[in-house]
């Protein structure tokens, strides 16, 4: 267990260092999300009531698309100079690599959400009518749902010729239950339309099931030729 923690920590620290130096993923994600906010705010001119109805969908779809950018970047780094082979020939557990990548992506997407959420609030004139604090567990569970599957499928599509296209093709259909839960929970909380408890439980279940499945299957994905 200590080896798992140590290697996960080392790989996460290495990925953060590489991202800090290149800023490849974070810059692309920020620009993409910013464009979505600005373009949609000019395309529609909703009042506060309408905003509460549509903003939840817009926010999460923007984050989902932006996350794909980070997910592709995170594994592309391992392909350059075939560095992934150095990991594959080492005794380090596959699950450490997977957890480190998922946690790294989680940090990046969370950072993006922290920067972009206030902008969404301003541009769409949003104010939560329900218990606003519940947006935090929605964001945490929802973001993990996106990145855990995204990290797994990005690794799966790593050796395919058109991996930028393969990732959304694999990821989006399987993310539908999670995205629906995130959007509904956010909409309910923004509109003050009752409790988001059901959607939070659904998200938590989704996270537990897919995290377990991805951890169990990642060794096979990593060692695939």
């Amino acid at each position, binding site marked *: 267990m200590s080896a798992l923690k*140590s290697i996960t920590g*080392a790989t996460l620290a290495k990925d953060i*260092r590489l991202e800090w130096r290149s800023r490849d993923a974070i810059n692309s994600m920020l620009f993409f999300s910013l464009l979505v906010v600005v373009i949609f705010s000019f395309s529609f001119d909703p009042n506060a009531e309408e905003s509460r109805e549509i903003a939840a969908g817009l926010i999460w779809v923007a984050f989902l698309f932006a996350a794909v950018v980070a997910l592709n970047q995170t594994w592309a*780094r391992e392909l350059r100079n*075939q560095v992934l082979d*150095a990991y594959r*020939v*080492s*005794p380090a557990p596959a699950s450490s690599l997977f957890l480190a990548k998922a946690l790294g992506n989680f940090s990046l997407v969370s950072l993006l959400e922290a920067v972009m959420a206030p902008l969404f609030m301003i541009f769409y004139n949003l104010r939560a009518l329900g218990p606003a604090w519940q947006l935090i567990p929605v964001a945490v569970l929802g973001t993990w749902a996106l990145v855990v599957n995204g990290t797994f499928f990005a690794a799966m599509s790593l050796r395919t010729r058109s991996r930028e296209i393969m990732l959304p093709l694999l990821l989006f259909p399987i993310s539908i239950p999670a995205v629906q839960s995130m959007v509904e929970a956010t909409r309910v909380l923004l509109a003050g339309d009752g409790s988001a408890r059901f959607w939070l439980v659904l998200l938590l279940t989704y996270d537990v099931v897919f995290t377990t499945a991805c951890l169990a299957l990642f060794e096979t994905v990593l060692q695939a030729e």
Partner: protein
Amino acid sequence: MAVALIAVNGLIKQFGRFAALRGVTAEFAGGRFYAILGDNGAGKTTLLRALAGLAQPTRGTISILGKTARAACRDVGYMAHPSLLYDEMSGLENLRYFARLYDIAGDGRCEEAIRSVGLEPDLARPVGQYSQGMRQRMSLARAILHDPKILLLDEPFSNVDVHSARVIVGLLKAMRDSGKTIFLVTHQAALLEGVADEFVWMQDGQIVDRGAGLSRE
């Protein structure tokens, strides 16, 4: 022949319909320097990748110290044609990361490995800015970092200047003399004359000849 350190039996590796290895059977003793030669597409790199546990055999078995290739990973160091290093990090940063994968504590082993290949550990430049020769030497430092019994080296002299090639050959000779087993794939066999203990020729996915000298029987 001494007791086999590595035994390969009926090894076949297919990529779709193409067979890169066609029933390789061989035994290799410990503490020797093997130079693997052959034309492009002969199966040299695939054999090395199979020994490193990177290519799963389609059929046949590999035994390294009585274990499977994957299980023997702590005993094997692998240097590929690409550097297997992160371009954005310095050599020392790279090695410190890889040391963690082998559970090696920070007791100066990384610095020692870098010095042993004739580089300076305090070199702050990222690996992406190294010359090809420096990159190959740093790649070798990564492969020997965990002090493996067996070294698998895939074309370590490609695009390397004469000085760097000599440094690498000298280092490998010293490692063989200290009891390590070395497998080296190369097209520059002349560099290993008088250094390698055995030359192994491959052709069409098979070992076709083995001998102490560069001239084939």
